[in-house]
Structure formats: C-alpha cells, structure tokens
C-alpha cells in the first residue's frame, strides 16, 4: 500500500484519494445547487419559487470536517448531521440520486418529497439530519447506546456547528455519553458564525474541545480546515470509541464560503473575508499536495473529477426526471401500519 507522508504518521494514498473524491463530489454537487436554487428565483428572489424551494444551507468550504472522519466509518456506523448536511451525507455514502430528488421534492426522494434538504434520512447507511440546532446529538447518543447494548463495535458521529455548542442538548448529550461510556464522537465545525453571530460573541471558550474537561472525555482541535489533520485526530477518536474508551469532542476550524443560507445578505462580515478564505480552499490544497508528493497523477485526479461530475450530473437528471408525489400522498406516512 502506497503511503503519503506529511510531518505526522502516514495516511494511505487510497484514503487520501477517497477524501479528495468525496470533497470534490460535495463541492461539485453544491456548485450545481447554487445554480439550480436560483432557477425560478430571478429576477426577484422568492424563497418559495423554483425547482428547489425553501431554505438552502450549503457547506461549500467545510468539506474537510466530513471526509476526515467518515473515511474511518463503515455503513454500520451512524452519522447525524445538522441543517447543513450535504458534505456529511455524501461522505457517508447516502444515495445521491434519492438525496437530490428529495431536494427537488420528488416522489423518488429519500423521504418521498416530504423531508427536503434539511431532513434527509438514509437508513441504509445510517444517516440522518435535521433542522433544529443541536438536536441530532442525542440521536447519535442513542445510536451509540444501541450499538453498545447489542455488543457491536459500531460508533456514532454527530456533526454540529460551533453555534450549537451553546445549546442545552450539547451538554446533556455529552454528559450522558460520558457517564455511559458510549462510542460517540462529536464533531464541531467552527465556521466562525451562527448565522450572523460571531463565535466570540456567543461562546465563552476559545475552542469547544476545551469543554471535554466538563465531561472527563477526550478533546481535540484541528486547525486550518485541514483534512489530513482531521483524518488523524478522527482515526484516534474512532479507535477509542470502538475500543470502549468513550466519547471524544473534535472541533475543526473550517470556512463557510457562502452565506448562512442562499440569499443571506452577509452584512455581518467583511466583504474581503470570503476571498481570503477561498484562497485556502481545502480541496485545491489537497489536490496540489497529492500531485506534488506524487500521491496521484494529474490523470488519476481528472478521472476522479470526471466520475464525480458524471455521478452528480446523473443525480440531478434523475431528480429532474422524477415525478412529484400525488398531492394526496401528503396524508400518508404519518404512521406505519
């Protein structure tokens, strides 16, 4: 197995290429979504118009957080994600066609069009997300509990934004997971903002991994939106969880290239901020390192990019081609029988 060296221990090239592919897929998926979302919303923006209506929270720039840990997971491990879930879903292997169709509100969607982009559920790979800040953490605790009760070495990963670390559910969940020594990993994506409110105006500590002390568990901090550092920290955290050594908090410094949601006027941040962040694009950086360190040839990478493009394009085509559910289907699926 070829390995790829940085200052730290080795990461296999296969894993790096997988991470590159997933990041590229997420990015290309969202680049398309930026366009699709505006369909029907121009010249006058109307959130309820177009093929993909409702709120749209994109994760462009935040891909490292998702791939750096999901690379260590199997489909038996659980992931819960928040309102900004595409990069996690893609890294966890959620069915891309059904996911896209769901965002288009089609009957072929993951939730038959009932969920929408904030409510993607793919039990085949144990993925879920939701629109209430911090509410997915307890669900991951429950998955971790279920794994432990069934004697499995499965782990559960909850993703949240840094703003969610001030919600009550954060504290209750971590205390419970720690007391019960559950295989839970909480990944906090610090993109500096909760909508318009800066982290420093909302959070009493510099970095949320410090809060691990409140639960007697492990904490780690990843700087610079670095997928490889995320990989390494996550590798340890997942191993600890699988070995019955309890929960970990990981906070990663990451960047939100776009607004909180599409249509956000972003008056709360400096116009120059985003171009500065974009210069640090983690996908380009990983691509460059792979090429420079001869971990992958330009040709190999182009092949990956082509595959990604094809898969995403197909997913959008599938979504567009699918039918809307019959209106009366609104009455189904409240209860199963």
């Amino acid at each position: 197995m070829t390995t790829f060296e940085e200052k730290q221990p080795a990461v296999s090239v296969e894993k790096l290429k997988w991470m590159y592919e997933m990041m590229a897929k997420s990015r290309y998926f969202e680049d398309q979504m930026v366009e699709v979302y505006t369909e029907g919303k121009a010249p006058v923006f109307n959130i309820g118009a177009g093929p993909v209506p409702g709120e749209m929270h994109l994760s462009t720039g935040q891909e490292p957080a998702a791939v750096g840990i999901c690379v260590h997971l199997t489909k038996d491990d659980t992931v819960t994600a928040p309102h900004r879930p595409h990069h996690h879903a893609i890294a966890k292997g959620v069915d891309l066609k059904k996911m896209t169709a769901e965002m288009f509100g089609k009957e072929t969607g993951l939730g038959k069009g009932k969920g929408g982009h904030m409510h993607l559920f793919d039990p085949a790979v144990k993925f879920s997300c939701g629109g209430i800040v911090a509410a997915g953490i307890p669900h991951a605790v429950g998955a971790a509990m279920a794994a432990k009760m069934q004697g499995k070495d499965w782990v559960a990963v909850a993703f949240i934004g840094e703003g969610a670390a001030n919600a009550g559910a954060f504290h209750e969940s971590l205390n419970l997971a720690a007391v019960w020594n559950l295989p839970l990993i909480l990944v906090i994506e610090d993109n500096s903002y909760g909508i318009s409110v800066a982290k420093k105006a909302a959070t009493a500590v510099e970095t949320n991994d410090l809060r691990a002390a409140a639960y007697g568990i492990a904490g780690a901090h990843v700087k610079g939106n670095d997928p490889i550092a995320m990989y390494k920290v996550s590798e340890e955290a997942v191993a600890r969880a699988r070995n019955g050594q309890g929960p970990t908090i990981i906070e990663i410094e990451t960047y939100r290239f776009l607004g909180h949601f599409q249509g956000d006027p972003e008056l709360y941040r400096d116009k120059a901020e985003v171009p500065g962040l974009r210069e640090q694009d983690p996908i380009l950086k990983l691509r460059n390192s792979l090429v420079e360190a001869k971990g992958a040839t330009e040709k190999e990478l182009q092949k990956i990019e082509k595959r990604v493009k094809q898969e995403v394009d197909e997913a959008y085509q599938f979504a567009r081609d699918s039918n809307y559910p019959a209106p009366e289907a609104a009455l189904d699926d409240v209860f199963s029988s």
Partner: protein
Amino acid sequence: METAKKRILTGNKAMAEAIALEMERDPKVFVLGEDIGNYGGIFGSTQGLMEKFGKERVLDTPISETAFIGAAIGAAAEGMRPVVELMFVDFFGVCMDQIYNHMAKIQYMSGGNVKLPMVLMTAVGGGYNDAAQHSQTLYATFGHMPGLKVVAPSNPYDLKGMMISAIQDDNPVVFMFHKSLQGLGWMEQLDVSAAHVPEESYTVPLNKAKVMREGTDVTIVGIQMTVHQAMEAAERLAADGIDAEVIDLRSIAPIDKETIIDSVKKTHRLFIVDEDYKSYGMTAEIAAIAAEEAFYDLEAPIRRLANPDVPIPYSRPLEQFVLPNADKIYEQVKNLMNE
C-alpha cells in the same frame, strides 16, 4: 376477563407487568428514565424491572430529558424498542423539541423509511395539591400535534393491554398514566385503581374509545379520572331518572369519532368533561366533531366542563374549585337535560 380467577392488580403493577412481558418476549425492548431503576419509577410504573432485567436493560438516567428521550429516538431508529419515562408530563417543556420535532415527525419526514417503535410514558393529573408545575394532564397539548399516538388509559386492565399494544406498535406512542389511578400506597386510595388483570399477555387497541355505561338520554365523554367521576355522576343521574351513556375516550390521538357520534345519534345530548385546561382542549375537539358530524342529531347545546383557563393552584379549596368532579358533572348534566 370477568370469569377468570380474580387476580387484583393496581394500575402501576399492571403497567410494570406489561413492560416485563414485552421485555421477556423481545430483547430489543428496554427502559430508561429518571429513578426508574432502583426506585421503580416515582409512580411505580417500572416496579421490579431492574431486579428482573438488570441495569443493562433498565437504565436510570441523569436529569437530562432532552438527551435521554433523544437517545431513545436514536436507538429506536436503529431498531431498538425503548420505553422511556418522562417523570411528570409537566416537564415536557425541557424536551418537547425531541418529542415533537423528532419523535413525532421523523417517520413522516423520511417518507416512512425510518420507523420509531418507541413509547414515551408520563404521569399526568392533579388533585393532591402538587401545584402548577406538577399537576397538569396536557392531553390536548400532545393531541394537537400530529405524528404521535397518544393514549390515556383509565384502569388497570387497559393500562396493561394498552402498554403491550404501545410497545408492539411500530409507531411512536405517548402513554399517559394518571397518578391517582396507579393505586400507589402514598396517595388517596381509589377503588378503581385496583382491578382484575389477567396474568397472560393481551392487547387493547390504541384507537378505540369504550362505552363504559350504556344509556339513552345523554352522552358523557370523559378520559382517565373524569371517566370515573362521570360513572359516579351517572349512577346519581339514574336515580333521578336520567339514563346517561358514559364513554371513556382512552385515545387522545387518533380519536375514535365513530363511538362518539354513534352515541350522540342515540342520546341527542352531549356533555364532555376533562381534567385538562378548557380552551383548545379535549372538550373543544369532541364538541367540534359533534357539531360537524352529528349536528342534526343534537337536541341541545353541547356542554363542557374542564379546568378553567388558569394554572393549577396549590391550596386545597382552590384546586378543588378548578378540578372537575362527580358533583359538578351531576349538576351540569341535570341542567343540560333541562335545555
């Protein structure tokens, strides 16, 4: 059941027996909540389970309702069948997001791809001066928001049978038990809180009201405590020559409209009684159903008796003033008969 050997159980023991039977049958069933282990549940709903099934399947939790109810949701999504206790329904507000945005909606939002086979059980009811934060029933609060089956059994037989149904149901169920009907040694002893309960497993449906007393002159709909009050009032009304039909609603959601409408079609008068707050409450929904679907059968205005729109006061005379009871039902039904 009437002919079987008369094994008498209190409400709480009937519940605990139901859970135990299901835990024996299905290893995926487990119980969690505050003080449900050693203590056996503050209202005895899990009495004896820890001894029988051990700490791995009967989990005392920290005071973290959002975390442990949310964890039950997460475990249910993975195929486990948790029975989770919210000690008093009055505490719903610290965890309502998990109950209402997740437990109730995930099945729907996932287009039926995720199932949440779980039971949230919780104690309701006042009458023992536990004041504004520990005495509510909140039936309509849970009934109003779709996605949950919500039941409120009134006697030991139903407590056992409906709990078994709830655990076996693949949908999320809110199971409300009334403190005063648990038959606990430290509360007022009510005859109706202990009754014959068969030893074997049996189910009682989660969507059927029950006619407790047939009658021809007026329909009285109640639930949990008010059913027993209505039965007492009905006896006294009978002595006055008024033959009341008494219906135990049993299920807050879904509502068994048919049983109510059939009864109104027969009696032509409707009286509804509820321990919950009046406005936007159970009495409103039942009245609306009748005014929509049995309007031409009604011969008099609908009357409803419920907790007036005030929080539940502590002091005995004040609490007795707001709570429904047999006297009030008797009197108000008599008035209704003169309409």
